[in-house]
């Protein structure tokens, strides 16, 4: 193949590398106004009065808006399309603030500096209400966190119970039972581009919104709900995005930015600074999970019982989906004959949570993979062997939704990964008794490919031959930086005999692109890729037809190759064909295909880590790493590897450093800057080897399936398991901060 399986650079690499790509923060517009917010300093309070006079007196201030002079429509920032059923508990400016960082007011001014200075002159009086800052005990929520509107704040927000087989019997006949509680922290996306939005009025009473987002249609639906206007009055275009990881999946600034552009008739930009991006956007939900596993003496899992609570913060957003998502992923990794699952999402008066690379998967895998590792150790069994004994096999059906897991190659990841890592030898090597201890650990993982069967999982792609002889792809696509545009261009180019660079992708735009779910749920390559492949196949047929006429050749003689339409002994370029057609007054060929998924296979991975722990300081260093991924087929191995490298970095942070915890006494998030939220930087990254298992997935384009989210999912448990191996500890509270390590070694301050 010429394009597929090739290490082709990003088609937009040059724009990014030269700094010429214009992000939303880089745009200038005549008459641009700037907004700045006043955020709640209280965790839960009724706003008694807002006095904007001081701010309005500042020269250059255009106006101040708060709950009394803005629409009070309830909305849910996580809906993907109009009419989607969702708990609508948010407002642009709520009369009762429900977390520190909730929006109290916005100032609009001629410059950002003026807006920010004026914000400090707004005087607000609050009446404090009782705040719930930790997810337990949950019973209290219904009373305290409910505030004024009990009806829409249920407790728990959502719960999912599931039983399969006979768990009680499984535990009764088990040779071994292991039980543990695992805590995963609230964590922050830290996309390097802070949240930003630009909006301006358009003719016909419409408003244009230009923002880095994951779905222009989701932005349109949310803003329409918040403003209480028809969706077609909003024209949403995708701005280039400086990283998202789920953090920009929910429109946060867009409703207000659009409202202000409409009210003032001028373009408006609101740009969060880093502090605001930390404290007033979204985080990954913290979780507390308890798991019991019943095993036979040979390591077979007989039954499992899971109880998980996720703290989704002050607003529902999409947090109600978390318990179900976690169950969905839990049951797709191992063949467990008896399962009992209870999951619940609860409100607290803390920053709302949202999507973050894996959507529940990192939490549930941390739980499942750490507890299974403890079980293996207690039984004296090899962790790889235990996983290999239980991992699902190709074609297996999962018990919850009854779906086939497709060509599930988790076992290949385990075996090939273990061999390449030299697992058996390294695992049995002594970890030493000195100050520095080394250990190796591993974890397996699975993730989904798209939203089937939960949503109508469809993508419509249109490909058109342009007069210049290139191909234009129209589809509401959002490349979040992962290279999905390049991947899709490779797929189209492969079918059409072109190069990826010959495919021009029109930016996502609600006025010109058909509805799409956007970039989420690991659906780009598997769903959008297949839509593009099928549209390209249809376009190729049309080009072969017209090319046959132009070359006076039979269809069967025509080949599309090297940017040309070839017949025996003669050929024309795509541009020649376009010219030939336009001379004859004939339309240039185009093709549209809607691909609607009817499957949701699993992607699988096994990660292996070696760590060194300094028992004096509690500091952990990851020294070596290997990631084996069941990817079906890598459309672009270089970009696939890029996803895995980046996923490991984020997962290592999740395991070791990253903690956006909220102070349980004050409700304040301590991690509000890069100084107080430690990331894994270049010096901390270990050497990484990557193995790709490419056994093909029948329903994916050229056999491909997803990698973006799964890349980060097994990392934290692999690292934690390695530390527990090095120290013979039972560390189960993430991140493994030095004080927790020292505590576990009996050297901490609390011991």
């Amino acid at each position, binding site marked *: 193949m010429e394009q597929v399986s090739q290490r082709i650079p990003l088609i937009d690499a040059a724009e990014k590398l030269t700094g010429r790509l214009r*992000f939303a923060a880089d745009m200038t517009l005549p008459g641009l106004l700037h907004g700045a917010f006043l955020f709640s300093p209280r965790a839960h309070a009724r706003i008694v009065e807002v006095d904007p006079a001081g701010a309005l007196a500042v020269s250059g201030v255009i106006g101040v808006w708060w709950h009394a002079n803005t629409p009070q429509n309830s909305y849910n920032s996580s809906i993907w399309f109009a009419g989607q059923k969702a708990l609508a508990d948010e407002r642009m400016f709520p009369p009762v603030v429900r977390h520190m960082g909730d929006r109290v007011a916005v100032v609009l001014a001629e410059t950002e500096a003026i807006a920010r200075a004026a914000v400090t002159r707004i005087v607000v009086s609050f009446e404090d209400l009782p705040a719930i800052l930790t997810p337990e005990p949950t019973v209290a929520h219904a009373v305290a966190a409910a505030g004024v509107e009990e009806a829409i704040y249920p407790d728990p927000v959502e719960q999912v119970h599931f039983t399969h087989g006979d768990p009680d019997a499984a535990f009764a006949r088990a040779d071994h039972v292991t039980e543990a509680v695992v805590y995963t922290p609230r964590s922050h996306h830290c996309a390097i581009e802070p949240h930003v939005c630009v909006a301006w009025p358009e003719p016909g009473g419409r408003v244009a919104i230009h923002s880095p987002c994951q779905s222009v249609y989701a932005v349109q639906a949310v803003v329409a709900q918040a403003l209480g206007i028809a969706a077609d009055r909003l024209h949403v275009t995708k701005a280039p995005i400086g990283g998202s990881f789920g953090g920009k999946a929910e429109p946060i600034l867009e409703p207000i930015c659009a409202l202000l552009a409409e009210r003032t008739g001028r373009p408006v930009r609101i740009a969060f600074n880093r502090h605001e991006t930390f404290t007033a956007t979204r985080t990954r939900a913290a979780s507390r999970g308890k798991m019991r596993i019943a095993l036979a003496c040979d390591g077979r899992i007989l039954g499992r019982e899971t109880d998980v609570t996720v703290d989704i913060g002050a607003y529902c957003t999409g947090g109600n989906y978390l318990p179900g998502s976690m169950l969905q992923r839990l049951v797709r990794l191992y063949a467990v004959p008896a399962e009992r699952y209870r999951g619940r999402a609860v409100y607290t008066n803390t920053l709302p949570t949202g999507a973050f690379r894996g959507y529940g998967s990192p939490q549930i895998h941390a739980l499942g993979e750490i507890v299974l590792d403890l079980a293996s150790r207690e039984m004296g069994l090899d962790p790889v062997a235990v996983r290999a004994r239980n991992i699902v096999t190709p074609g297996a059906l999962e018990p919850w939704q009854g779906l086939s897991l497709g060509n599930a190659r988790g076992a290949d990841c385990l075996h090939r990964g273990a061999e390449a890592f030299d697992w058996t030898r390294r695992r049995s090597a002594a970890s030493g008794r000195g100050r520095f201890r080394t250990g190796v650990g591993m974890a397996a993982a699975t993730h989904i490919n798209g939203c089937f069967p939960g949503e109508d999982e469809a993508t419509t792609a249109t490909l058109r031959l342009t007069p210049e002889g290139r191909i234009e792809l129209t589809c509401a696509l959002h490349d979040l930086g992962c290279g999905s545009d390049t991947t899709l261009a490779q797929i189209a180019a492969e079918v059409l005999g072109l190069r990826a660079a010959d495919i021009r992708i029109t930016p996502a735009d609600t006025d010109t692109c058909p509805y799409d779910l956007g970039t989420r749920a690991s659906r780009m390559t598997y769903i959008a890729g297949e839509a593009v492949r099928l549209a390209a196949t249809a376009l190729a047929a049309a080009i072969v037809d017209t090319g046959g006429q132009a070359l006076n050749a039979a269809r069967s003689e025509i080949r599309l190759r090297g940017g040309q339409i070839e017949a025996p002994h003669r050929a024309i370029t795509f541009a020649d064909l376009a010219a030939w057609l336009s001379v004859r007054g004939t339309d240039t060929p185009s093709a549209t295909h809607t691909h609607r998924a009817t499957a949701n296979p699993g992607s699988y991975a096994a990660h292996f880590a070696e760590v060194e722990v300094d028992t004096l300081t509690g500091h952990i260093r990851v020294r070596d790493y290997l990631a084996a991924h069941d990817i079906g087929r890598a459309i672009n191995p270089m970009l696939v590897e890029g996803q895995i490298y980046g996923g490991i970095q984020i997962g290592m942070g999740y395991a070791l450093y990253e903690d956006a915890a909220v102070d349980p006494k004050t409700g304040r998030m301590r991690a509000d800057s890069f100084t107080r939220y430690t990331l894994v930087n270049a010096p901390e990254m270990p050497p990484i080897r990557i193995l790709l298992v490419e056994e093909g997935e029948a329903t994916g384009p050229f056999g491909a399936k997803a990698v973006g989210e799964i890349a980060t999912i097994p990392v934290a448990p692999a690292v934690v398991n390695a530390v527990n191996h090095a120290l013979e500890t039972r560390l189960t509270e993430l991140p493994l901060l030095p004080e927790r390590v020292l505590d576990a070694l009996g050297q901490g301050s609390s011991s």
Partner: protein
Amino acid sequence: MKLTLRINGSVVEQDADPLARLSEFLRQVLGLTGLKEGCCEGECGACTILMDGAPVHACLTLIFQAHEREITTVEGLGDAGVLTDLQAQFAGAGAVQCGYCTPGIIMSAEGLLRSTLTPSDEEIRHALAGNICRCTGFETIVRAVAAEAARRCEAGC
């Protein structure tokens, strides 16, 4: 206050608040938006530029500190729209993903390569310690910088 800055080879004389952030001045007044502001606290490195050939965080630099100095931004590295060899190494190695950190990392790497002929991987990693990239895991970036160091060495030393 009237300030003289030498930016990307041209002399810019401008009345400006000497205590304003250089990053803001370059982006908003001169339209050099290649450099980004990811934190304005000296932590992310997205705003990295070269001052007299050495990488600095433009967000922590006040305009007066740039007076009479030689400033290079990503726009000044090569001819408009054409990749420098270092940038081409990044593209070829897959060292750019979302691209928000990228101009800053290019400038840090360029600064390193101007002062160190044959940096080890560890030196490269430490030179990039002030730049956060949330997408790439740094692996491909380190490779791209190492490849460019090797190329320059072969070409020049």
